[in-house]
């Protein structure tokens, strides 16, 4: 260790204790973000320590990236600077849980799986099931704006987060919102933290509303020869009185990946529409009946109800779409594109042509008829990268010009070196920059990772 590094390590040890500062290359490798390695990783054990670390980092102009379960660090552009990893995994307590009020307050480092176990004991859940639930932390889920198959019924963190406590880039502990399910007191600063990738503040507490677990749930799969049939089926659901909790669509490649992943054999060459309903038996029967008839009208080849094991499995696959694509090839480039239902058929057709032109495989998951996860799957060798870059750039342009908002959620570093994973900023850029300046005037929080170079 150099003298500078040693002196830094000892000053950091004064902040959090020597046992909670890592400077060895082995430990630090785990904290790499886009190939950049920090000089130290810190594991604070209290909010006060988080504040001290950020005061110190702010004074010394050290760049900090807040880190949870390290499951979503691939999102964002490579950081401009990266000196300290602020690992919140030791802040992992449930601070308040009032089942009868359906409210919850947690520290950011608790994993989704751990929290879910707590809630299930009381017959409740938080509808934010992320990929890698055993490792993903609530702080990370919020900061990455991870979504979940049940967003069709429950929305996303924006709809579930009641309030938060956080520490700004100047080390100031602050909060907004509240702990009750309804509240309009003061400005909703916590909304800004959702999807902010740690560029505004380090989250130290999150208050959520929870939901009762449904008495029963059942998953149905309809298979279609082409995307238009699947889309027509889903639009019919949208226009019906039914209230399913999941409405996702898979293209044949995605279905194939899931089948390979699960050893199952769900319609490998078909488009799949996956629908999950919840409620009492009568409600499920009604869904089964109506969905079957809608699927027939939409010319489905098959319509089946899954058994509980299959359901759990497929639900897991839907949650894990991005990692499954990444498992197929480490060069997977996953777009996340928000689009209106009416825009989906044209978008699918354009992307099909585009991928074919570049001879790239592509797996598609359409979530809740509103967000398209599109994974380009090139062979994992550097020779494929130029084609991948071209295809990604064209897809980005295609989306932007047709008025839908894309971002690349996961891709090889080579892609990030060649193009921006964010769409170009719009008229909101000036106020966005001013807000960044309010929260983090010295630009020490995850600099460069966010949209518009923030």
């Amino acid at each position, binding site marked *: 260790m150099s003298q500078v590094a040693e002196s830094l390590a000892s000053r950091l040890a004064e902040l959090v204790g020597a046992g909670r500062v890592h400077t060895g290359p082995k430990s630090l490798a785990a904290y790499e973000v886009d190939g950049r390695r920090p000089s130290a990783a810190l594991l604070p054990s209290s909010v006060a320590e988080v504040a001290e670390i950020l005061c110190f980092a702010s004074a010394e102009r050290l760049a900090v990236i807040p880190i949870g379960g390290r499951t979503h660090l691939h999102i964002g552009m490579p950081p401009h600077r990266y000196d300290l990893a602020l690992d919140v995994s030791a802040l992992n307590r449930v601070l308040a849980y009032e089942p009868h009020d359906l409210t919850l307050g947690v520290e950011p480092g608790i994993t989704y799986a751990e929290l879910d176990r707590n809630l299930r004991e009381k017959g409740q859940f938080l509808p934010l099931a992320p990929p890698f639930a055993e490792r993903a932390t609530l702080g990370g889920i919020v900061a990455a704006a991870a979504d979940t198959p049940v967003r069709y019924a429950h929305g996303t963190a924006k709809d579930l987060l009641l309030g938060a406590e956080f520490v700004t880039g100047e080390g100031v502990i602050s909060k907004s919102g509240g702990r009750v399910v309804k509240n*309009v007191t003061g400005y909703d600063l916590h909304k800004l933290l959702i999807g902010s990738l740690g560029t505004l503040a380090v989250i130290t507490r999150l208050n959520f509303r929870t939901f009762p677990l449904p008495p029963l749930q059942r998953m149905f799969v309809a298979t279609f020869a082409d995307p238009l049939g699947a889309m027509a089926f889903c639009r019919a659901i949208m226009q019906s009185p039914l209230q399913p909790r999941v409405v996702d669509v898979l293209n044949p490649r995605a279905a194939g990946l899931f089948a390979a992943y699960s050893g199952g054999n769900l319609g490998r060459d078909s488009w799949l529409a996956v629908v999950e309903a919840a409620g009492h038996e009568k409600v499920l029967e009604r869904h089964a009946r109506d969905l079957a008839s809608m699927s027939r009208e939409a010319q489905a080849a098959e319509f089946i109800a899954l058994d509980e094991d299959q359901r759990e499995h497929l639900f897991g696959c839907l949650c894990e779409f991005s990692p499954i694509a990444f498992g197929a090839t480490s060069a997977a480039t996953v777009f996340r594109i928000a689009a209106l239902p009416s825009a989906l058929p044209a978008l699918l057709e354009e992307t099909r042509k585009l991928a074919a032109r570049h001879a790239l495989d592509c797996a598609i998951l359409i979530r809740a008829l509103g967000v398209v996860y599109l994974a380009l799957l090139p062979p994992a060798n550097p020779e494929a990268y130029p084609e991948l870059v071209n295809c990604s750039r064209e897809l980005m342009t295609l989306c932007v010009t047709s008025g839908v908002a894309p971002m690349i959620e996961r891709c090889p570093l080579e892609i990030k070196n060649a193009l921006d994973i964010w769409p170009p900023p719009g008229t909101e850029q000036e106020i966005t920059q001013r807000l960044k300046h309010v929260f983090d005037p010295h630009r020490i929080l995850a600099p460069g990772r966010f949209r518009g170079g923030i």
Partner: protein
Amino acid sequence: MQRTIIRELERLLGSSGVLSSPEDLLLYEYDGSVEEAGPDAIVFPRRKQDVVEIVKLANRYDLSIVGRGAGTGLSGGALAREGGIVLAFSRMNHILEIDAENQRAVVEPGVVNLDLSRAAEKYGLYFAPDPSSQKSCTIGGNVSENSGGPHTLAYGVTSNHVTGLEVVMPDAKVIRLGGRAMETPGYDLTGLMIGSEGTFALVTEVTVRLLRLPEDVRTLLAIYDSLGDATDSVVDITARGIIPAACEMLDGWTLRAVEAYVHAGFPLDSAAVLLMEVEGVREAAETQADEIIEVCRRHNAREVRRARDARERALLWKGRKEAFGAVGRVSPSYYVLDGVIPRTKLTPTLLRIEEIAKRYGFVIGNIFHAGDGNLHPLILFDHRDRDQFRRARAAGAEIMQLCVEMGGTLTGEHGVGMEKNELMPLMFTETDLDLMRKVRAAFNPVGRLNPGKVLPLGKGCGETRLQPFPQSAGGNA
């Protein structure tokens, strides 16, 4: 206000687009709250460009601007606390588009809440937030206050139903936040803007999500001889995993006042009624209604009625939605409070409110969204008696403090406005408030928009830098 300014405004908007006579100004001194504050002029833009020009003019003459929808707000949000211009959106009231296929509508801010739902009805859609004032309140006002309503228990408040905004910033630039899609990469500025009570920017266009009308609605009225049994029922219903679409409570005093006016069929000798609604697919509504009835009976409900048809349902809801009007008949004035507590603390909180009522010598009626713990105590007083007014405010502040003590918040849906800005320290530390001030200043650096609202006055806020209002040359101010 200087004649020259009025003339300039008239040149922009036509003479029918500007009000400045003393009688007209008087009408805009009020909203739905107990607050008062008068503007120096009221302007009625018809299009976005008018708003831009008004903002430019206000910048030239250093005037403050307060956006106003229908003026039904209950925290003084639409009052010109420091004079200046009230910018009334009532003529920007067009539904620009209903995109039924994608379940979106694009509207101007002055569109009345219920008008939007009515227009969407032919597509089988509606706009979920339903404040009691929905016959007159506007979507722009709903966005500013992040309004709720009885059905927000299941469907959420305004912020859960808005996907995009177009706003005019205090520097007169027009920017777009969010869009029509479910999400937009970048900070959630739409979420931040909603509920900012007109202190960040002026909203000129709103894109909202429309929901599908439910296939079946079951409306239930449970009647109790004890308030405690009613509140216990609420907790137990949730514990069973049922989230009703709405769950409203009226206490004995309030239900009697309402019954005398609306004749909704509330028994006059009961201690509380619960008005509940479940909806969705027929099978779900049916099962949940049965379960709710069972829970209410177990908690000693004297009677549980089901609305048999749309007419009975409408009558029960009339009893709820026109409750404030009913109270207006029996008292010269009333002060509607808005606080939230965890729903498990309903019983002890209501007992403490009763104590406060006795101590101050007021009747306090309670009508509230029981399902989400959103209380609306009504303090009856006579506003002509300044001492009563002062004591009503003090009793209100004490009830607000109680809500915060119980783990709740200062406002669930009415906003902070100029009613509760000095109570903000009950919930937030000085550093919390300071960050909020800085965020406001990022949007609204000289405090031109809606000064004196949301945050406590008197410390480091931009608005204190605002120049005093230019003295009238024409005798109107």
